[in-house]
Structure formats: C-alpha cells, structure tokens
C-alpha cells in the first residue's frame, strides 16, 4: 500500500488487479514468456503472481503462434486464460489463430461455444526499442469482427478495465501502452484531473471525456486512446494557455466494437474533430472514427475531420529519429489550429 499521496504507477495497478482476479476466480490461468518470479514478466506486471499461484501461472516456450491457439482451446473448455504477449508486435505471429479461430468459433459454431480469453499486449514506442518492439498495432485488430479491443490510458481505472476483460465472454485484446507502466495512474478527483473536468461514460470499458469549460463549449473534440492521452492533454493545455482555444478530449478505452456516443455528444458542442493515435496513419483508428463521425454527425461538423498519427514508416531506434516519426504535442496543436475557423 502506498503511504504517500502519489497515485500508484500503472504497473502496480495492473499487478494488484491480477492478484485480485486470481484470488476471486480459480478458473483464471496466466500464460506467457518469462512470467515466473522472481523475473515476473518483461515489464514486471506479473510480479509475485507465480509465487502466490504456482499452478496457475505458466511460463511458456517462445511460441506465440501456438499460444493464441492454446489459450483459445482453454477458453473453449471453460477456463479463463490470460495470455501475456511480451511485446505487442508479436501479436502478428498469432493472427491466424485470431482471424481464423478465436474471433470465429462462437459465431461459426452457431453460439454453441464462447471464447472468454484475454490477450494482454504491451504496445507503443518512445523507449528506443526500434522497429519491431515499438509498434502500436491496434489497427490490425480493429478490422476483425467479433473481438473486443480495449486500450487503457493512464487516466483510466486500470484494474477495473482488466477485471472487466476477464469477466467478458468475448475474446478481449487488452492493449497496455508501455509508458503507462512507469507513470502514475491518475484518476479523477472531484470530477477533475488537473484543471480539466472529467466525465466517465460507457460500461464496462468507459470513455473519459475532458473539458476545460465544464462541458459548456469547445472549439474541437480530440478523440484519442492509450499512450496518446498524456500528449493530447499537454496539447490541450498549451492551446488554452497560449491560444485561448478550449477543446474537449475523449479518451476511448473500448476501441472495438467501436462505440462513439461520447464523441458524438461532444461534437454536438464543438463542431469539429481531431483524432490522435500513436499507430501509423493509413487505415487506422482515426480513419474509422472519421468515417463514423461524418456519417452520424455531418450536420454538426463545420470542418473536415483531421488525423494525427505516426508517419507511414518504421519506428527508428535512435531517439531523435523516433521522435521525428511519432505524433507529438505540436502535431496535435497544429491539427487543431488548422481546423476551419480556428486560427485567427
């Protein structure tokens, strides 16, 4: 237990949630590479778990392509496997199982089965890990029907999200941006995080809606998730302080199936949308949000939706090159300023 006012770090919040989940359900099993104590996983999320539950934490061979199937088989037979993928980039090795098995079994077997598994996948860059250990590959999953993609941000209740994922009858892909492990899990206090008012909306994977005007007015809605949230919040603060421009921010946690009620409610006030994601631009999260918002709220929009994302290329290893590739605070500020009717 922490004794200071400092909130828990993300890794602690997730670790405590895992311990609580294991204590409350004995059908939960965790599989992954290097997850045993004292190592406790590459990012230490499973620390202490194998000491407490030696029969329910399985360290595995380096066999991601099969492990997705092993987890699926367990889920088909009534267990609740949590599969830890060391780096989310390696989800690519499991795509056959995801596309042709995990996502299909329930519907193609005419609802005779469910596949209640959780895949925990650390994604994201800004740590210098280079092209194959830094990606945000959520967009590969967003186009697969019948799975749930949940991305946590440092302002979400991480434990509640993970617990809901384990309770979910659907296959859940639980995206953990690596930076949130080391950062404080900042939760709203009295409806505020910092100077911004915050509402939470949606169950069991809520969106966080931030407003600098107590939800009365705004110039644009910035739609984001995961590791981009702190960058977007910095950009929004800069827009207020330096340009007196007030934006709503909507941080989704449920990316798929995509539900945008909270976004549409905000857009009705602001009339403009900027999307912000860490993955590469083309065919991504922002494209899907833009298509849906333009269909559902065309009459509310005064400007085309603008997207902020990584450039369509690799994520270089050198930090200076990495920074140049990834979306920044300035990119978000610039995108908002470039909306019709904003720049003065």
């Amino acid at each position: 237990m922490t004794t200071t006012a400092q909130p828990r770090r993300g890794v602690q919040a997730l670790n405590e949630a895992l311990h609580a989940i294991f204590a409350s359900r004995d059908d939960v099993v965790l599989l992954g590479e290097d997850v045993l104590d004292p190592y406790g996983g590459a990012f230490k999320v499973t620390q202490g778990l194998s000491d407490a539950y030696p029969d329910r934490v399985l360290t595995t061979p380096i066999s991601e392509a099969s492990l997705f199937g092993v987890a699926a088989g367990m889920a088909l037979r009534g267990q609740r496997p949590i599969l830890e993928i060391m780096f989310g980039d390696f989800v690519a090795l499991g795509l056959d199982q995801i596309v042709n098995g995990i996502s299909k079994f329930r519907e193609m077997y005419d609802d005779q089965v469910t596949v209640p598994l959780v895949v925990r996948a650390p994604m994201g860059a800004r740590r210098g890990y280079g092209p194959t250990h830094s990606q945000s590959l959520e967009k590969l999953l967003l186009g697969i029907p019948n799975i749930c993609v949940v991305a946590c941000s440092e302002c979400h209740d991480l434990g509640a999200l993970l617990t809901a994922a384990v309770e979910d009858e659907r296959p859940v892909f639980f995206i953990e941006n690596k930076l949130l492990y080391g950062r404080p899990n900042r939760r709203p206090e009295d409806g505020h995080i910092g100077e911004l008012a915050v509402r939470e909306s949606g169950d069991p994977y809520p969106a966080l809606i931030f407003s600098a005007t107590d939800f009365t007015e705004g110039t644009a809605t910035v739609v984001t998730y995961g590791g981009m949230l702190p960058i977007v919040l910095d950009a929004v603060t800069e827009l207020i302080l330096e340009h007196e421009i007030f934006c709503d921010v909507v941080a989704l946690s449920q990316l798929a199936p995509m539900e945008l009620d909270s976004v549409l409610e905000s857009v009705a006030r602001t009339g403009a949308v900027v999307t912000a994601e860490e993955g590469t631009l083309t065919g991504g999260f922002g494209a899907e949000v833009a298509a849906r918002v333009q269909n559902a709220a065309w009459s509310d929009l005064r400007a085309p939706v603008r997207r902020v994302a990584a450039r369509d290329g690799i994520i270089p290893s050198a930090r200076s090159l990495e920074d140049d590739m990834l979306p920044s605070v300035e990119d978000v500020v610039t995108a908002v300023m470039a909306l019709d009717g904003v720049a003065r």
Partner: protein
Amino acid sequence: MNQLATFYERMFFIRRFEETLLDLFSLGKLVGTTHTYIGQEANAVGLIDHLDPEVDTVFSNHRCHGHYLAFTDDAFGLLCEVMGKAPGVCGGKGGSQHLCKGNFYSNGVLGSIVPVATGIALAEKRKGTGAVSTVFLGDGTLGEGVTYESLNIASLWRLPVLFVVENNYYAQSTPVELELAGSIAARGAAFGIETDELDTTDVELIREAAGRALGHVRATGAPCFLVLNTYRFSPHSKSDDQRDPAEIEQRRARDPLLVAGARLDDDERVAIETRCEERLAETVEAADAAPAAAPGVAA
C-alpha cells in the same frame, strides 16, 4: 451384433454418406466445397470406438465428416449443415469444414487446430476430467510450423493429447515426396512423445493400435503420436484429381470395406448395407425437405 459388424456398418455408412455428397453436388443441391473421407474410414471408426463422446474431445480438420459421424452419429445434422439447411449442426454457418457438436470441433485451416486441441487438453487436465484430446492431422499439416510448437508444448507440459497423422500420401494434389522431408514418425519421437505407426486399412488392427495409444495417454497423462498410413480413393475435394488411375486402382485392393467385409457372412453384410442405404435415403429426404438457413432477424 458383433464388433466387426458394427464397425463395418459405421464405415459403410460413412462411405455412402460421402459418395452421396458428391452425387448431391452433381445434382446442384450442394454448393461450396467438401473433402470426402472415402478410403480412410477405418481410421475414424477404429480409433473413435475408444473415445467417450461425453468426456473425450476431438478436433478435426477440413476432411472431418468421417470423424464427425464416428463420434456423434449425427448424419442429419451434418447433411443439413453441408446443404445449408436450418437444422444443420451449426445452423448452416459452418458448412462442411467448420463443425461443432458437444465435444467435437473442426476447423478449415491446416495446422491451426493443433494448438487449440493442445489448449483443450490443458484445460481438461486442469479440470481433472480425465478427457483425452484427439486431433486429426494429415501429411499436409506437417508443413505448418505451429504443429511443431504444439508437439513441444504438449510433451513439455505432459498434456493428454493424441496426435493422429492420417498420411494419405497427398497434400491436395501434391504427392508426399514433393512436400515432406524425413520421417513422419520421427517427428513425434523427436519431441520425446510416444510414437506408433501403422500401414493398414484393417479396422481391427487400427482399433488395437489406437487402444494402445489411448491407453498410454490415459495411463500417463502424456501425449501420443500415432501415424496411420492410409489412402483416399476420392479426389481432394470434388473433381480435382490428376493421380494415375492405375495407382488408385491398385490401392482399391486394400479398401477397408473389402478387408472388413470379407470377414462377414454375405447375408449379414448385405443386411448391413441395406440398412445403411435406407437410413441414408431417409436422411437425404429429410434434409432436402428442411428449410434453408435464414439470416437472423436483428433484435
């Protein structure tokens, strides 16, 4: 009825069921594709006789009808499924390759099913049910890498999996010598898995060998790797067969129905065949009359 007669009846029914599917294609009553089990019936019937459908599980592949019929005896559900009819076992959503009923599953991507069957074994072991997870592979499946990851995991974790390789010497149109290096049986042995290999179409010999293999899994909790060298007389799917007809003809001397049928009285054999034909005709009539699968109405 003695055991051999029972086996003959099961094999003959599978044979005629599969031949009937090919006829129904010709009549335009089936669309899509099918992969018939004609010639391999002794494997399914001899092996699955040892399984308890209430406890044990089977994961099969694209060529799954024989396994399904031997495990579930649900000819109507299968035929409706293949014909796209509402009473199909998966409501017409799965079709020929994607079946599920009780403890039986199949899927259409080679290799994909092997880790899932391994995970089923892990779950059943944890639950302490005593179930064996049987998974049917072919020689073609041995080209898929996840197969070997699963052999490693099943051996490493001592999981109750029976890996059955039905080597019919062809991966679709490609003969085994163009798709497979080395020994099949050695693949299981290399992972420290108990391995056995047979080259027969005799259902009684297959039953014996399967009994040994399953006995090993049940007694030790560890996996077993059983290679059944076999042959299919039918094309890979419907009419895609460029094999030398002389080769197929030569193999017909070892037709499992001839091998088993020769040990039955002619009267008994004919009575069995007549019973199968009648059952099949009734099944086809009922399936033909069943309503087509209809899209669900949105709530």
